[in-house]
């Protein structure tokens, strides 16, 4: 409940930062040199939740996550798999000891994520549409 309230509060904060009139849209971005134009929702889930770490083009995928607490992160997982950040943390916590897969690499903010995507063709990240940069390619828009 507390976490839900925090989430809502963070969402409202994000909306306040972005365009207030329109709900913020999260976009999945890759390096233009990655060789892919589009990703399906399931492919994004598989990559970010550790099922596959490969892009459809055969390239190893390097998913980039935001560090908690982050409004984009909450929004991303909420829209993608209908889970809050705590649930996602719990999900990864169970996998800590299996060693087969690991949570995505985390960055503190959207700018760092975008920079990483611009510099690494394997990188894949999610950002608020407002933080888009011409140096990256949008492969999936996640709308509410």
């Amino acid at each position: 409940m507390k976490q839900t309230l925090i989430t809502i509060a963070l969402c409202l904060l994000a909306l306040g930062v972005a365009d207030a009139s329109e709900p913020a849209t999260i976009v999945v971005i890759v390096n233009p040199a990655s060789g892919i134009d589009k990703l399906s929702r399931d492919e994004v889930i598989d990559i970010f939740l550790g099922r596959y770490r490969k892009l459809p083009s055969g390239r190893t995928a390097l998913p980039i996550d935001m560090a908690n607490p982050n409004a984009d992160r909450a929004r991303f997982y909420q829209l993608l798999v209908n889970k809050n950040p705590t649930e996602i943390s719990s999900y990864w916590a169970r996998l800590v000891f299996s060693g087969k897969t690991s949570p995505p690499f985390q960055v503190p903010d959207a700018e760092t994520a975008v920079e990483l995507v611009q510099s690494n063709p394997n990188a894949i990240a999610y950002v608020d549409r407002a933080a888009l940069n011409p140096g990256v390619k949008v492969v999936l828009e996640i709308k509410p």
Partner: protein
Amino acid sequence: MKSSPDNPQPGRRSRFAAFVPRSIVARTSLSILLLAVVMGLMFSAIESWRIRVAEHDRLLARVHELVGTVESTVSIACFLNDATLAKEIAGGLLKNRIVAGVRITAGATTLFASERVSPVAGRRGAFDTVGTPVYSPFDPKSEVGRITLYVSHAEIEAQAAAYARYSVGILSLQMAIVAAAVAFLVYLLVTRPIKGISDELHLLEIRSGMRLTLPSGRRKDEIGQLVGDVNALMARLTDALDSERELRQAQEISERRMRLVVDKADTGILVLDALGTVQSCNPAFMRILGAAARPGALLSNLLAPHGPAVAALIAESYASGEPRDKDLELAASDGRGTIWVELSVNPLGGELLQALVNDITERKHAESAAQELASHDTLTGLLNRRGFDSALAKFLAPSRREIRAALLLIDLDRFKAVNDAYGHEAGDRVLREVARVFERTVRRSDPVGRLGGDEFGILLHGVDNAEKAQEIASTIIAGISQPIDIGAGLKSHIGASIGIAFAGPGTESPAGLLRRADGAMYAAKQAGRGHACVAAPPSSHLSADREDESESNAA
């Protein structure tokens, strides 16, 4: 308890009976405990079966729950094809003893299959499988794998059985405690008081004032009622016994008095059955009829010459229900003379009759003495005129069929002289001696009478010819003609003249017969005394008689 081969039946029974306790306490307690055991076994069987079924279902449900608890982790393992995670889950599941094996598959790949299952997995009967599809943690519609748990039948059965055993054990224990409690309570509330009452009653003597003690606090229940009723019953019993004893004493006294009366009575008192057998009798009866008169004898035998008459009398009285009596002449029990008894028989009701035997010998003698006085001559003991006339009339009664007899009319010769010369006493001696002569000569049954001073009559029954009559007459004359001692050394010499008349068939009157005999006697005197003359037969029957009569009347 011996059992012999001859009678194995009682032996076997007694051996069996040895196992059945006699005491109500032991029997009741044993019954309750036996019942508890039987019911306990029955309930245990039912309960055991029910528990095993329920436990089986419960364990299977538990397996489903187990699957539920690991569902989210399994979905992650399948989603990620994570064999390590799958192994970890399986390890956790296998810690449950009922889980014999786990198989987790993601699509075509088997993430985990436990070794414990694989060798016997083919044997379907040995395991229950609980399988459920696994969905993606992020998309409940997308199936990412399958988890299957293998549950050992043997394990389930063993656990269910263990639980059932435990439950049945508890149940049995409860049952045993309850049975013991019930047995104890029954002993305390019912059997012990009853045993106490029973023992007390068993040792109780029948006397007035006896009482059973009431167990404390039981006044108002059935035990109290029982004791009260038994006490009331005993009080009534002793009262009845007391009053009966008093009654018996009174009866004894009255009986003794009665017996005294009966014993001291001069009358023979006896009880007979319907056949005339003496049932009981008093001493007087024995005194009268002699030593043979005792219970068991037949009365008709005791009264021997009258046996049939006595039997008839008894039968008649018994049949009619009315008293009957009869006078009987018997030979005296001491063999001297005869006695007369009056027998009267009274029905007592039922099969019995009462008989009274009175010795009436004296009365009879008095009677017969009076009779004799009326019909006999006191001097000679022969019949007097009246007696002889009645004997004659009886003999000549028209109702008699056959009349054959000779009438002898005897007149003494020279008697008047003796009387005159020596006095009446000498005459009387002569007359008595004459009577002895008659008695010596004729049969006892033939009536002999003294008709006048020195005139006698004899009726000889059955004598119908003159020779015989003459012979008898001669004997008489000869007897009388003998010298007769008249005292003081003197002897008289008298004689007799006899007239004989035959009574033949017909209706001649006694007077007619006497007249004819008188005529013949007169003729004998005329012929010179010491003779006997036979009278002519009556000239004709009725007419002659009439004539005779009219003649004599005229004379």
